[in-house]
C-alpha cells in the first residue's frame, strides 16, 4: 500500500511539469490586455453596464495573472490534486462559464417576468381608458387617449 504510494509520488516528481513557453505567455498577456480594453470600451460606449462588467474584468485580470505568473497555475493545479495543469485550467474555466451562463439565465428570467408584468399593466391601463371613455362620450375619448 505505502509502497505504491511512494512509487506514484516518485513518478509525479520525475515527470517534467508542463511549462508555458515565453511566446505563449506574451500572447496570453496581450490577449488579456486586449480583452480588458474591450470591456472598458464597451462600458465607455454604453454597450455594457458596469454591474455586468465586473465579472468580465476580473476574468481578464485572472488571464493576465496566469500569463505573468505561470507558477500560479501549477500551484492551483496542485491544490486541486490535478497533475495536468491544462486539465485544471480547463476545469476552472468551464465551471466559471457554467456559473456565468446560469447567472444570466436567472437575470433573463427575472427580466422576462418584469417585462410581462409591464405589458400587462399597460394592457390594463388601456382597457381602463376604454371603459372610462365609453362611459362618457362613446368611443371618441378612447381614440383620443390612444
Amino acid at each position, binding site marked *: 500500500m505505502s509502497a505504491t504510494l511512494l512509487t506514484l509520488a516518485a513518478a509525479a516528481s520525475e515527470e517534467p511539469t508542463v511549462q508555458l513557453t515565453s511566446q505563449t505567455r506574451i500572447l496570453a498577456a496581450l490577449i488579456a490586455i486586449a480583452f480588458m480594453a474591450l470591456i472598458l470600451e464597451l462600458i465607455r460606449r454604453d454597450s455594457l453596464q458596469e454591474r455586468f462588467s465586473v465579472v468580465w474584468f476580473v476574468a481578464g485580470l485572472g488571464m493576465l495573472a496566469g500569463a505573468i505568473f505561470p507558477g500560479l497555475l501549477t500551484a492551483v493545479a496542485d491544490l486541486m490534486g490535478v497533475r495536468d495543469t491544462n486539465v485544471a485550467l480547463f476545469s476552472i474555466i468551464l465551471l466559471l462559464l457554467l456559473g456565468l451562463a446560469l447567472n444570466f439565465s436567472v437575470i433573463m428570467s427575472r427580466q422576462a417576468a418584469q417585462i410581462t408584468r409591464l*405589458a*400587462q399593466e*399597460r394592457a*390594463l391601463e388601456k*382597457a*381602463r381608458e*376604454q*371603459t372610462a371613455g365609453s362611459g362618457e362620450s362613446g*368611443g371618441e375619448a378612447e381614440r383620443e387617449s390612444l
Partner: protein
Amino acid sequence: MAAWENRRVISTLVFIPAWNEADAVAGVIADVREHIPDADVLVVDDGSTDETAARAAQAGATVASLPFNQGLGAALQTGYLYALRGRYEFCAHLDADGQHPPAEVARLLEEVRADRADLVLGSRYREAGGGEAAGGEAIAGEDYRPTLSRRIGTSVFRFFLTLATRQRFTDTTSGMRAANRRVMELFSENYSPDFAEIESLQLAVREGLRVEEVPVRMLERVGGSSFLTPLRSAFFIFKGMIVLLVGQFRPRTSR
C-alpha cells in the same frame, strides 16, 4: 382612475384570451352576451397582428391589448389581474376560437357563485351523469374530437397531475374555467407563463383551494388550427412533466 377602482360592483367578468382570432372573436363575444348577460366581457388581445382588437371592441367588449405576444399564461393572468383590480366577485374565461360554448361557461359560473368550489374547470372528457346532454338545450356545432397526440398528452398529464395533487382531473388543459376572488388573488401573482393550465391546477390544489371539474360539451374549432404537431406534443408533454416535478418542490405562498 380612481373612478374605475371604486365603480359600482358588477360581480362577474368573462374574459377571452385571443391571439389572431379576428374571424371568431366577435361571434364568441355575442354568444357570451346572450348566455351570460349580467357579465362584463373583456378580451385580452395577446399582441394580435390582425384585426382581433378592433373586432372585439366593435362587438362591445372591453379590450386589454398586450403590446406584444406573451403567451396564453400571461394573457390569462392579465384577465385575472383585471378581474381582481376591477373588484369582480367572480370571473370566467373561455377560448376565442369558438370551441367553448358560453352556455357551458354559465354552468361553471353557477358552481362558483353557489360557493361549491373556488375554481371550476370545464372538462371535455368527464362523462356527464345520466347520458343526457349536459347543457340541456341544444348547442349548435360539431362535437369536439381530440386527435391522437392530444389524447396521449391528456392521459399523461392526467396521470401525473393526479399523482401530484391526489385529486382526479380528466381535462387538465381545459381553457374553460370559472373562479372566485381567492383564485384571482393567487393567479394574478403566481401564474406560470410557460405552462399555464397544468401548473395553475397544481398550484391551486397546493394552496388548499377547492378545484372541481364539471363535464361540458366542447365543439370543433371554427377557424385556425391547433398549434400541436406530434413533435411539439412530445416536447409539450416533456416540459409539462418537468414543470409538475418542479412545482412539487415550490414553497407555498404564505396566505
